[in-house]
């Protein structure tokens, strides 16, 4: 039975840890499918974490914090669009600028306003999201296997966990089953053809970036107002890049990106479990090396043992109408 509960807790933490990655990967799909590179997921996630925590602290309601985070992230997405869609600046440079700007600004403002070396004050129960217990979770716990799955794996997560996994089919539907999605993908593959058909390429890219901003805000809010009860310096810890790698590994497709996110989440959950554990034949692996596991996995996945990833055709190229 202990083995079973070990597995259950591992799956449970995998679901929780993958959540911000799922939101970020879905956000990335919108931007990149429209032909705009988005390495700034990292910075936006950090911004959302900061704004959600600060907003919730001052307004006393985590939903208002989330709303502010959405506004902040959409603004950053618009900034990215302004630089790289309207002014045709280099998309990667714009992303690097946003990432560095946000790392500095969030920590500097947290220090200036709260004077705690880049920490925001701890949120109380009213100011943060709490775990959601599904109905009958307690009473069904003793049912063999099914009870464990329902009560220990599915129940007791933060609202964002459920939202993240609901987002995936929604994104699939929007991108692949609606006319908006068709236009979105066309803009990323062949913008001049779309332009000829009378669709505004720039407007489509801005719309995609706006959706991207909304989605990534959830990832940040999950970090600072649900899993943790405050913001701390660089708390996104490379998750934006991991999500991007997951998206590329998933070939810009929601379902496969989800699988990659879960794989990252599982690796991370496993590395936390493995810390300080004696492994047969190997012994105890030093904690610093275990912590590097998700990053190594990212590189390995990107190296693509499943074939070369093919990006949307027009990605990274600003659209110039006269050409």
């Amino acid at each position, binding site marked *: 039975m202990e083995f079973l509960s070990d597995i259950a807790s591992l799956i449970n933490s995998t679901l929780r840890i993958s959540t911000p990655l799922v939101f970020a990967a879905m956000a990335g799909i919108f931007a990149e499918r429209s032909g705009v590179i988005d390495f700034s997921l990292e910075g936006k996630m950090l911004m959302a974490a900061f704004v959600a925590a600060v907003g919730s602290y001052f307004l006393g309601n985590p939903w208002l914090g989330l709303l502010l985070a959405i506004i902040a992230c959409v603004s950053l997405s618009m900034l990215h669009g302004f630089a790289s869609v309207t002014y045709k600046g280099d998309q990667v440079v714009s992303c*690097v600028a946003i990432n560095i700007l946000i790392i500095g600004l969030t920590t500097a403002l947290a220090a200036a306003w709260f004077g705690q070396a880049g920490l925001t004050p701890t949120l109380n129960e009213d100011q943060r999201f709490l775990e959601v217990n599904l109905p009958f979770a307690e009473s069904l716990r003793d049912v063999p296997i099914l009870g464990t799955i329902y009560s220990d794996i599915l129940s007791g997560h933060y609202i964002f966990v459920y939202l993240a996994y609901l987002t995936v089919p929604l994104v699939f539907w929007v991108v692949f089953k609606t006319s908006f999605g068709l236009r979105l993908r066309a803009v990323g593959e062949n913008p001049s053809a779309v332009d000829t058909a009378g669709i505004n390429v720039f407007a489509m890219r801005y719309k995609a970036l706006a959706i991207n901003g909304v989605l990534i805000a959830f990832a940040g809010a999950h970090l600072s107002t649900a899993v943790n009860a405050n913001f701390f310096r660089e708390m996104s810890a490379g998750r934006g890049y991991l999500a991007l790698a997951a998206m590329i590994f998933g070939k810009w497709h929601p379902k496969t990106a989800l699988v990659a996110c879960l794989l990252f989440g599982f690796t991370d959950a496993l590395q936390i479990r493995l810390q300080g554990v004696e492994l047969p034949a190997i012994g105890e692996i030093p904690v610093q090396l275990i912590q590097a596991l998700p990053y190594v996995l990212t590189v390995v996945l990107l190296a693509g043992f499943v074939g070369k990833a093919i990006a949307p055709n027009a990605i990274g190229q600003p659209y110039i109408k006269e050409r």
Partner: protein
Amino acid sequence: MATVDKSKVPWWVSNLIVPLINLILALFVSGLFIFIAGENPFEAVRLIIYGSFGYIEGFAYTLYYTTNFIFTGLAFAVAFHCRLFNIGGEGQAYIGGLGVFLVAINFSFLPVPIVWLLAVMGAVVFGAAWAFIPAYLQATRGSHVVITTIMFNFIAASLMVFLLVDIIRDTTQMGPHTIALPEEQWFPSFEDFAALFGIKIRYSPLNISFLLAIAASVFVWFLVWKTRWGYEMRAVGHNTQAAIYAGISPYKNIIIAMCISGGLAGLLGVNEILGVHHKIVAGFPAGYGFTGIAVALMGRNHPIGIFPAAFLFGILYQGGSEVTFDMPNITRYMFVAVQGVIILFSGALENLFRPQIENFFVNRLNFKAKA
């Protein structure tokens, strides 16, 4: 957007006036941030100028930071000419420092100048090796270097902390750092030079690595603009298809460009290990690798531009520490944000006012020519 005939735009407009206006915009936005943080931006500017120029040690610190930024700025610029975004300077510098230390400690029986030479080579080789894997994956698998080099920064940090805690730690001390190198291997410092002329000044981290940075700038200029390989690399960066058609291998050039870039970033380890700490201290690259991106973009990826850009960031860093000392609401992260703003305005948004400015000057010159 207005279009301008590029050939009619004088070089000083596109290379001096436009970057300068972008920089002023960036500094204006930065001033707003300082205001939001609850301090007076004008007072901050005064403190920055005093901190970086006001006294001899302050100025020495400014040049010490300049040294680091020249290395990381050149590193980013070389890769950028091949259209590669090497944002892994941080990790490459970290591993480069490991190379410096391992060479210096293991060859301490050799004469000191030879050890220095070998240590510099160690920095380059280790830094280049750390850039090689992302380069190889980019060249063969198309794995984007932005993600892989960032991952290699995280991996380098984990690896170095592991080494510093478990393998090469100075076990007589508490902190995660190595033992110190023998004193005769330490690079001569600025105050040593000053002492030769009978001038006594207090400690500063400035050392002869500054000259190495100048040498590296000349090397990069020669390599990128004056050699056949530099031409090939720029050709790949400018138009890969055309380069392939001309018989230039993008595969080879991507790997060489990244390795040279990593080697240059590794040189930061020379300044930090031989010049300043004399041992490996956990986290010594301290963000210099990222600042190199801003330096290179501001300096338009040319050594002649990178030098003043590195100096400007030296002023911001040294003056910035003066600000954080006097203004409780400002931390050094404020200057990380300033870097982001500078990258935004001199990199991504560089076209914001360029057509208008260029038009203005072209029209003026035309007007003069007619008159």
